[in-house]
């Protein structure tokens, strides 16, 4: 993984679920503030 520049991550389903919810919220704010549009 390191050769490809990837940092290995592991998590439990519960922790990953929490992470995903936080990421959706975080990126949601970023998209809103930046007014980014899919093209």
């Amino acid at each position, binding site marked *: 993984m390191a050769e490809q520049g*990837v940092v290995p991550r592991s*998590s439990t*389903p519960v922790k*990953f679920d929490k992470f*995903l919810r936080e990421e959706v919220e975080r990126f949601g704010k970023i998209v809103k503030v930046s007014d980014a549009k899919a093209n």
Partner: protein
Amino acid sequence: MKLAPLNIAATVACGIFATQALAQKYPSRPVRMVVPWSAGSQTDWLGRLVQPKLADSLGQPIIIDNRPGAGSTVGATMVAAATPDGHTLMMQAAAHAVSPALYTKLPYDAVNDFGCISRVGSVPNVLVVAPSLGLTSIKELIAHGGTRRGAALVDAGEV
């Protein structure tokens, strides 16, 4: 030219599980791993890295199914609609968390229509500009954008 690493993209893997399926022998047949990105992409590479060991561990072949399109929402739509018995998995990227805000009509709930299994790895993003612009920092880039009319066009890799 300066490269600014932005460590915001975390590759994630999602799978669908139904609790009732766990009472039976799992997996009872080959498992499909949908990769909503093209073959050779970073996420595809991670899927193929995990594939042989996961197949060994589960005792069934893992079939990678590349379904790229519309910022990964085409493949994710397929996975969301699949029978939730654990035989359809998805190797996904950070775009999954961006899509709900970016696409107004997403045919799935990015959180509740998927059962999370595990994160796999995180990758850095890089921000680059044409050297002819002479910009060497994000501050200069923002100032440059502010002096121009219209919007900046950004290619965010897998987003």
